[in-house]
């Protein structure tokens, strides 16, 4: 037993020594290596920068350091930073150095780390000739490779890759699908036609594509988005409504107004916001009606949208006399948060009765709607708030 304990003790001491020593060595190496690598990197940054400025694209130095990982890293950083003809020259240089073919080879046959590094590098190079390899990588088993490949395709920006991206989209897990949809945004208008077609199909991630179309903001997608408003998929209706709010034309407004009668409150709430974004006066009566919606979010969004629409602010003021207390409350809350109430309070001291009287009217109505505390906090004497209140309710 004693012998066993002794051996255990020796073993543990040795283990501790090894682990502690290794930690010390690893940190020391990192310390030294970091400085050396930084110096080396700076040298390459200066070297390549000088060649780029001089336009010396055939310099021997590119071939000399072609296989140096640090040199390649700096090349990729330059590709990220520069644009136009210089960038094009540098892409050709990377081709000449054999970097592109090497990376495409790794992308198709390397191990996990090589594939992801290759995809990252190709995303920086963005050479249209690598497009087939990147499309191939969209089916990679490692999500990070697929995400990098999609980013590379977006950087290249050629519309012919969009269809492949959308086909690949349906095979992704949720997390990767979101990232691929983000990449789709990178294509800009080149992605619209195929994406709109996808939207009218039965794709698994149509809500994500609808969102992307809204972000791109191209009106070519309007028909497909309007069609998506009829979908049975609630998420798609919400995303399509939001997209039309960003990217629609006046033509989409009646469809959005119709959506204010949707069964789902989340859809109605989104539709109310979208109508506000379109700033179309036709929305005013519909939004006024939505102030009495059963869902708070719909009422709130409708009131917030009225602030944005010409003529909507007046409708909000009038809503303070609405028979429905919920409508009054929604209107009053937005009048407060939009700064209109504060402005009205300031106007109370105006010498001009045309300014003072409407302001007084608004303040009184807001106080009656239970917003007296706001004015007290803004410095109005509580006694004055009580006087303006008239109706005998207590000031909240």
């Amino acid at each position, binding site marked *: 037993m004693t012998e066993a*304990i002794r051996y255990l003790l020796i073993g543990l001491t040795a283990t501790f020594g090894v682990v502690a020593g290794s930690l010390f060595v690893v*940190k020391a190496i990192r310390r030294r290596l970091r400085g050396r690598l930084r110096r080396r990197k700076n040298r390459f940054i200066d070297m390549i920068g000088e060649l780029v400025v001089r336009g010396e694209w055939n310099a021997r130095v590119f071939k000399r350091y072609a296989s140096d990982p640090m040199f390649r890293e700096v090349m990729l950083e330059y590709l990220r930073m520069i644009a136009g003809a210089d960038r094009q020259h540098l892409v050709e240089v990377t081709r000449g150095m054999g970097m592109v073919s090497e990376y495409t080879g790794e992308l198709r046959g390397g191990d996990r780390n090589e594939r992801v590094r290759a995809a990252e590098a190709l995303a920086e190079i963005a050479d249209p000739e690598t497009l087939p390899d990147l499309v191939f990588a969209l089916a990679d088993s490692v999500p990070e490779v697929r*995400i990098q490949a999609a980013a590379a395709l977006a950087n290249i920006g050629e519309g012919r890759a969009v269809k492949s991206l959308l086909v690949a989209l349906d095979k992704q897990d949720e997390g990767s699908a979101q*990232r691929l949809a983000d990449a789709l945004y990178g294509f800009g208008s080149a992605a619209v036609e195929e994406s709109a077609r996808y939207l009218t199909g039965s794709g698994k991630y149509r809500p994500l594509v609808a969102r992307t179309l809204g972000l791109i903001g191209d009106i070519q997608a309007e028909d497909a988005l309007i069609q998506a408003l009829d979908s049975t998929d609630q998420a798609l209706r919400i995303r399509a409504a939001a997209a039309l709010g960003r990217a629609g034309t006046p033509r989409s407004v009646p469809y959005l107004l119709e959506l204010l009668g949707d069964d789902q409150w989340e859809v109605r709430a989104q539709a109310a916001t979208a109508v506000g974004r379109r700033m179309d006066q036709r929305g005013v009566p519909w939004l006024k009606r939505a102030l009495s919606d059963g869902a708070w979010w719909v009422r709130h969004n409708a009131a917030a949208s009225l602030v944005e629409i010409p003529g909507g602010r007046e409708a909000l003021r009038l809503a303070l006399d609405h028979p429905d207390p919920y409508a009054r*409350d929604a209107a009053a809350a937005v009048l407060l948060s939009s700064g209109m109430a504060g402005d009205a309070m300031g106007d109370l001291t105006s010498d001009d009765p045309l300014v003072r009287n409407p302001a007084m009217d608004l303040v009184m109505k807001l106080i009656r709607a239970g917003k007296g505390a*706001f004015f007290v906090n803004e410095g109005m004497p509580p006694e004055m708030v009580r006087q303006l209140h008239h109706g005998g309710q207590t000031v909240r």
Partner: protein
Amino acid sequence: MVDSLIRWINYLVLIYVILMELQILVVAVASFIALRRDQFSQRHGRIRDLATSDTTPPISIIIPAYNEEAGIVESVRSTAMLHYPRLEIIVVNDGSTDLTVQRLVEAFDMVPIDFPIRPAIDTREIRRIYKSRLPLPLVLVDKENGGKSDAINAGINVSQYPYFMATDADMIIETDALIHAARHFIEDRARTVAVGGNVRPLNGSKVRSGSVSEVDLPRRPIEMVQIVEYVRSFLAARPGWSAMRSLLIVSGAFGIFQKRAVTEVGGFRNDHLGEDMEMTMRLHRHFLKLKQPYRIVYAPDAVAWTEVPTEWRILKKQRIRWHRGLIQVIWQYKGMILNPRYRQVGLVAWPAFVAFEFVAPMVEFLGWLIVPVSVALGYVSLSIAVPLALIALLLGSINSVTSLFLDDRFGYFNKAGQTLKLLFYSVVENLGPRQRSVWWRVRAMFWNSSKKVWGDMQRAGVGNLSVATGTSQIESGEVVITASSN
């Protein structure tokens, strides 16, 4: 007979200690594998793109505050600087008796608004809600005092977004921490119900404009010991348990939760000292009972910094409170221990936690009593007792150093002096501080004071450390936190 019994107790204590340290080592290995996998995603998953992506889920940041006038404004400013596409900041004033509300109202031009609330969880009455008129998504909830959990629940009721983060007013969250945490929700939106972040001690580091500008080690032994402890807990244990789908604590200082899941289980409980662990266990129990797929994960790169106690007196109170909280949770969820219905949580993680967190102080304490007595009475020879103690010391030290290896991914503390200091405290931590901590935990089992809903630790606030502590130094606009508690 007595001779044999005492000898066997000695051996049992030794076996227990070895088993405990081995368990820590096994989890550390699992953590190593999980961290490697996570690092791959971090490096190559274009995580930073998420900061500008529209798909990143919006998050409500809830900051419960009680008498935080010293630092609440800086805390909100620091939070507002986070790189995140959509977030709202909700400060919940839990009936402070100081000027917390006034400070916020003045600093951020806040006005009372009539804010309709959907009370998903019962809380103490909300007196008033303020909103900032600045272009800042800031809401202040002024409510009656009800404790930290009650304040978080009120924040949940007021929050707009589907996810919320509960944090402390004195935390400094790294600017990209939310992105790192949100990645897990994006990857698996349907199943992910909670993501825990990595909390690191701030002591010794330099703070500039509400963020950590230089990471360094503190001077005091008490702070150094806690640095080693935090690294061990957050990097050697949590990633491993998370990979085994058995993460039992999502830190209350930095945890992001799916709002629906938390309201489904009734919100945070106010009668618990360890409300973060209690919530995590409740989520496990809820979803495992319903046989619904879910994920509670740990995000090592989601880093937040906090001040740790600089006085033994404060540390003692904190540790006793933590252990009381642990006992409460164990008692409440005792039915999950070795219950196959709760799968890996009930069969592995929870029993291991009970065996090596709850029982450990008692066994270790027994060991210190019995070993010297045995030696004094001649039942065990010194030539056996000393090596046994050394074995326990070495196992603990190996575990700490292994944790430091895992911490190496962050690239902090690379100077030779810093490494030596950390190695030194990895050993020294087992010679005194550990024994002291065990004694506190033993006391916690019998300690029965009134319920404390807010921690005892007084903090100076991120922006006012130099003013309030008297021992901090200002160096060209930077604040070095050397002694922040009193």
